[in-house]
């Protein structure tokens, strides 16, 4: 259970060094993506001018305020509240994110599935769990909205955030086949019988 401090972009080696239950704090750039962003990129062939290679993406759609562009708010947006959404809806986009865009780190909540875990192993990627529903805290880790692309999808635009001390985030899925969700869910299913027994439920045998 080591702690890592990364400045993005990261290398494949940095990501492959991570193991489930390690913690990571990020600095530098973080890209925000969401359902509509990835539907546009991977189903409809929209291109982004951002180079995501080696970068971290977070499953988000922020609350923002439109302001005049300034050094503080280069994209003309001030952050209001930036948090994280449930990742599982975007499961099928993990592989293209890694394979086509070179993304190395996916940040989200609730975890991703088996196809993502395979993609992380094959292509060198990792899933970092943020604590969902703690957006007020998360917002304090964001310095600025540096840029935005595909903004016709607002709020599901492709956001470029400048971050400071973003974390600690927990490595919940690694590039070695480890998934905290798989182990917790397997444990929970194993306890199903115990929970049903506590409710007095016994399998009825046919007469």
């Amino acid at each position, binding site marked *: 259970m080591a702690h890592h401090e990364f400045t993005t972009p990261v290398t494949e080696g940095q990501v492959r060094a991570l193991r489930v239950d390690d913690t990571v704090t990020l600095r530098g750039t973080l890209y925000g993506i969401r359902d509509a962003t990835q539907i546009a990129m991977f189903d409809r062939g929209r291109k982004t001018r951002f180079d995501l290679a080696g970068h971290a993406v977070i499953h988000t759609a922020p609350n923002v305020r439109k302001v005049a562009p300034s050094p503080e708010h280069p994209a003309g947006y001030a952050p*209001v509240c930036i948090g994280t959404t449930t990742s599982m809806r975007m499961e099928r986009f993990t592989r293209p994110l890694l394979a086509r865009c070179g993304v190395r780190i996916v940040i989200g909540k609730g975890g991703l599935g088996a196809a993502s875990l395979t993609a992380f192993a094959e292509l060198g990627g990792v899933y970092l769990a943020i*604590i969902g529903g703690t*957006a007020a805290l998360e917002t304090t880790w964001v310095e600025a909205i540096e840029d935005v692309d595909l903004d016709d999808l607002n709020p599901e635009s492709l956001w470029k955030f400048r971050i400071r001390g973003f974390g600690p985030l927990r490595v919940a899925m690694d590039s070695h086949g480890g998934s905290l969700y798989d182990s917790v869910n397997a444990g929970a299913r194993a306890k199903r019988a115990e929970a*049903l027994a506590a*409710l007095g*439920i016994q399998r009825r045998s046919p007469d």
Partner: protein
Amino acid sequence: MHIDPQAIEDAAKELYLRALKELPPDVKRGFDALAARETGATAKAVLGTMIENIAVAERTDNLLCQDTGIPIYNVVIGRGVDVDGPALKAALRRGCERATREYPLRSSIVHPLTRKNEHSSCGIGVPVIHVDFSDAFEGLRIEMIPKGSGSENNSWLKMAIPAEGVDAIRTFVVDCVLDAGGKTCPPTIVGVGVGGTADLCVHLAKVAATRPLGTSCADPEGAALEAQLSAAVNLLGIGPQGLGGDATAFAVHVELAATHITMNPVAVNMQCHSARRASALFTADGVTYGF
């Protein structure tokens, strides 16, 4: 007592913002109770971050969660109120839209087919508005619930049959909690609707999920079922955020309605740990805000 639509509009705006920023005291107490008995190290840390976030939101006057939810307004008209019904509904909608544009909030509402976002938090049938009547008080009460999608996306209905009995209800609830895992932002309030028609059953699940912690089902059989299920789902070890631990649910809440002799419906709807709600009470003395 006449209630001016403008006052309702202002309250509708204020309630949306209040609900997004400050958790009700019963939910804060719920966190303290879960944290006190949690035995998992990761889970303790996760609960600690959630509790810290509540304080950060209040200190920075920010939203607890970035998900502004689907706005729901529950209106209860008490005794002695003179209110123009259609004007009331229009005022709620205007207040919801003003909160979104003036604050500004992220509008999370899109057309279900075109996916077009009007950036108003409004659309066909949204905000959801329920109107009911009560003879228990004088005045008018509006409850606002920004219902988060992470938990709402985990909703279930089973039209069980009478031969399956109450065990079908119990088993279904356990299986829904297993299926949800970490996707619902646990610890959750698990809302269970039992009985009624299919649509009433789902509605009751939502009423149960958004009921204050520490309250019980009015029906004693329902209350007993709540206690059993609350203990059982917390044996599963899913824990906060699905990362493992004891604190899977604050509680299981049950709401009941009578049903047909051939039917045994059960629905589950969940409320995430950011169990947000706010209320306004209009009386002859003016408006009082609470939870």
